[in-house]
């Protein structure tokens, strides 16, 4: 591939956008239509992303923010969301996974200084279609529906030694290590019932 250079790449959800969120709209259009959409790319700098995100969330008018990234940017997306959650406590989170198809168009580079062909000649181009996993994380100041798959309540940042106490009256803050804690429950039913008592 060293003789080719990437001309453009296009991204679209697999299946023509029939899932929640059509092309061009936020992946969480059903939950938070007005959310700020941060598209995380592979070369994005986390500092820049977070500076913008923190500034947006500092305004009380912004209720939700969405981080989305695919392929190599997936880990960066998770990291951005986690750092933002650490800076701003009390954010509700919904995570969605889906496939995105990325179409990259590569064009062959001209052969060299010795003109083997006229400059006006069309270069050979290659189109690559890749299905990459992608992640979209919604962080919202307002409470979200706990029955949504991928919902994670805000936690109060416990240390590693905290114990799984029974749900107390302060339900939203009392559950430590939400990621692991919610996974412990075997059925999605009881957890939704517990959260709804609070909500």
């Amino acid at each position: 591939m060293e003789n080719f250079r990437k001309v453009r790449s296009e991204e679209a959800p697999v299946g023509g956008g029939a899932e929640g969120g059509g092309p061009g709209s936020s992946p969480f259009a059903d939950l938070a239509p007005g959310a700020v959409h941060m598209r995380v790319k592979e070369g994005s700098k986390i500092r820049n992303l977070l500076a913008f995100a923190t500034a947006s969330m500092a305004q009380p008018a912004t209720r939700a923010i969405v981080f989305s990234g695919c392929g190599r940017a997936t880990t960066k997306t998770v990291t951005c969301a986690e750092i933002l959650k650490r800076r701003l406590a009390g954010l509700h989170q919904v995570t969605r996974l889906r496939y995105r198809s990325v179409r990259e168009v590569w064009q062959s580079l001209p052969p060299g200084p010795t003109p083997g062909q006229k400059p006006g000649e069309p270069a050979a181009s290659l189109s690559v279609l890749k299905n990459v996993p992608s992640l979209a994380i919604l962080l919202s100041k307002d409470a979200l529906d706990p029955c949504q798959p991928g919902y994670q309540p805000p936690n109060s940042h416990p240390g590693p030694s905290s114990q799984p106490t029974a749900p107390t009256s302060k339900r939203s803050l009392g559950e430590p290590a939400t990621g692991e804690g919610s996974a412990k429950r075997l059925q999605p039913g009881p957890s939704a019932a517990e959260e709804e008592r609070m909500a």
Partner: protein
Amino acid sequence: MAENREPRGAFEAELDPVEYTLRKRLPHHLPRRPSDIYVNMKTDFKAQLARCQKLLDGGARGQNSYSEICIHGLGLAINRAISIALQLQVGSFGSLQVAANTSTVELVDELDPETDTREPLTRIRNNSAIHIRAFRFAPK
């Protein structure tokens, strides 16, 4: 992640046994139930996918299948965990639902000074982790 990684000059020249002290302790509240799968980058992707599929389907005669499995991934394995979960979903013809949760895990690096008799230095990094629950559920 990237913000923590700043080389500190002289210390970097020493031996750097990376100690994942928190990895040895499996995520608290979650003893290693048989329905937990920890994804890594060393094992073959197809092997991990087959293992997850087998846990969901159960043995040859349908025994011992789990209605819900949890797939965990740390750092670079986040991508792989997502791929596995999505592949399971595709292969199940819509009867599988996935829900993802993210968290931060602290990793501890232990730097042993080789040249001096200084004490080992510990450095703490943060890494992202993902926990994906896959359960059989009829889609609404």
